[in-house]
């Protein structure tokens, strides 16, 4: 992996890589990301041609298919970085960032792809996960957020073990006013999502997720936070099936004050109309 880009001057503009899951399933996470960055004085641009980084195909072994998507991704984002139109690319996902920063060089390692390998390396150096960007690049650990309740943190695998990002989200959470950060047993253990693994090996994936869900319930947290909506989908899918009160939310939602304890299902929130159909574990602030 290439060395990360350094910033002699504070970055002013970033391109948002929102990820396909956030785009389609959790737009509120994308909006939270935008607002968090804007609050730090960063201008956000959103290249609308973006779709998916190619990770699902790559993880399943379909390298040709993944390579097509990876090239496409590089074509969209790399010119923005190289031309200086943006200082960095930021995504609210450790897993999708890992694809770009750690796995594109695998896809482009053949001789014929040398141009893309070079361009992908440029892009990788300037691509950051959201909390990594806030803490390591902007030097911010307090985003002036508030949450009156107990929080806990699940360390997603790619974020923790490929990117080595762990202290950054924890530092941000520690500074959430009113929140008590409670420990989570096995916080660094996989939730069992693993992309197609969740389908191909459904029963094992479920067993792993049930363990994670049980640990979250045991932690006594009102909400558990994480930096990847894929793990979030998996754990919430189990919590919802078990009709638990506790939910998992993306860290951007907490940092952007989109989550209250009262958001948990079974309690109603007077000031926001319930979305239709009711989306139990997400915040309702789609329309502002």
């Amino acid at each position, binding site marked *: 992996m290439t060395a990360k880009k350094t910033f002699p001057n504070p970055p002013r503009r970033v391109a948002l890589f929102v990820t396909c899951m956030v785009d389609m399933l959790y737009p509120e996470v994308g909006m939270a990301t935008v607002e968090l960055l804007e609050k730090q004085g960063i201008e956000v641009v959103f290249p609308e041609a973006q779709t998916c980084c190619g990770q699902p195909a790559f993880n399943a*072994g379909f390298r040709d298919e993944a390579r097509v998507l990876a090239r496409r991704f590089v074509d969209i984002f790399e010119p923005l970085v190289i031309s200086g139109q943006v200082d960095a690319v930021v995504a609210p996902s450790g897993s999708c960032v890992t694809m770009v920063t750690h796995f594109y060089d695998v896809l482009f390692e053949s001789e014929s792809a040398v141009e893309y390998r070079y361009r992908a390396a440029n892009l990788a150096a300037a691509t950051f996960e959201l909390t990594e960007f806030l803490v390591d690049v902007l030097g911010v650990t307090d985003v002036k957020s508030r949450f009156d309740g107990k929080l806990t943190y699940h360390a997603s695998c790619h974020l923790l073990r490929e990117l080595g990002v762990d202290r950054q989200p924890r530092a941000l959470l520690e500074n959430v006013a009113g929140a008590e950060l409670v420990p989570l047993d096995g916080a660094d253990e996989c939730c069992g999502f693993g992309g197609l693994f969740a389908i191909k090996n459904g029963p094992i994936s479920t067993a792993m997720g049930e363990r994670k869900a049980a640990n979250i319930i045991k932690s006594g947290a009102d909400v558990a936070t994480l930096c990847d909506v894929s793990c979030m989908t998996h754990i919430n899918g189990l919590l919802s099936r078990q009709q638990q009160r506790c939910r998992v939310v993306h860290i951007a939602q907490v940092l952007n004050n989109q989550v209250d304890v009262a958001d948990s299902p079974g309690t109603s929130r007077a000031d926001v109309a319930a979305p239709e159909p009711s989306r139990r574990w997400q915040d309702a602030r789609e329309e502002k």
Partner: protein
Amino acid sequence: MSVDIHAPYKERVDTALHDKHLRIALDRATSRMKTQRADAMAAIDGERLRTQVRKMKSYVLRNLPDLLETLESNLTANGAHVHWAADGEEADRIILDIARQANVQKAVKAKSMTSEEIHLNGVLQQAGIKVVETDLGEYIIQLADEPPSHIIAPVIHKRIEDISQVFQRELDMPPTMDPSAMTGAARQILRREFLSADLGISGCNFAIAETGTICIVTNEGNGRMVSSMPRVYIAVMGIEKLVPTVEDAFLQYQALCRSATGQQCSVYLSMTSGPRRADHPDGPEEFHVVLMDNGRLNMLARGYGEALMCVRCGACLNACPVYREIGGHAYGSTYSGPIGAVISPLLNTDVTDADKLPHASSLCGACRDACPVKIDLPRLLLNERADQVAEGDTAWFDRQAIRAFADTMKSPGRYAAAASFARTGSNLLAGMSGGNITFMPPPFSAWTQSRDFPPFAKKSFRRQWRERQERRKRIGNEGQRSKIED
């Protein structure tokens, strides 16, 4: 109901997941071993140790032919006999021939995964030779007629209650839950076997090329027994298990002990360089070493040479969240866990549904962090998946699904259309179950059997973004206009 390692993969996994006792046993043991390893590595500069062992082992692979020749000539000079085996069958035949020539009636064995890999016990027993496993765990599963389920803790899949029943059933032992009592009974029985066996068989944790020395690591002392008491001693090893120097051996030894059991040193490290000298009071008269390929060269040739650095410590099994749920037998192979998932399809062994093993991982990377040689196991699993695709070795459905996915993601138009289609469909499904989606058609039913799925957002992010930009433009224009009008 224990897992039948020859059953189809899905059946093995289902049996394992429904075996409550198995899952209790696995949970108790792996969490303990995981903590012990982490503590032992944290007590020293574990990162530096791992880097050094990795460097040493990559040197070994790069120089393997020369080191093998050095090992062979030193062993021969020390008075040992060196044999080469292309595969398990040849290794079995060599060992059987040695046993027959030495007129062996009974063999005692120290735990050896290599001998499990080539099903040596069955071959010897068929030839009328009694084979006694002497590692306590191996002894228990030999009594229970099961294969080992962990590289270093063969009976990890049994609770103490289950082990007690095996002792009662097979040895007529009175019921007890006292592990010392069970160990005491095994000590007595096995002591008789050690002192009366003609042949000792062990694997090899590492062989030192510069001295011609076979090293075995044990805690119980059975490794010392099999290499010291019987008349004939045979060590069987994969061609990759070499270290260049004595110092390298002790470096790997300490990394192995810390990674396997969290010990600084195992209780015993037995280093055998040759048969006993004429004036020694004990030791074997004959010493044979079998160097076996059995698919290891294939691993190197196919680009999986990194997995040949494995020191078989089992740390990746203990760290693996998949292994913790299903245990070793579900992998259907001698080698289980992440390393087993990588090497089983490549080794020359007979594993039912071996092609499923590279997919039996969420790629979480805990194994790589635990590995004393830093083998990038997730990357190797990804490569195996890619090889399967390249060789057309994938299910028709997977291929169609991924192609459709890639086609969709290639074009913003199709992407938008698919999203809108998914939104309609998911709203329908969510509406039926009142909120989240609790039912989806196959293959997505594999998800909704146990987990809900959120409905697609009413307005995608990109639509919200567009609206926001338009709103801002409008406000911006209005602001401009009001400025002019002022």
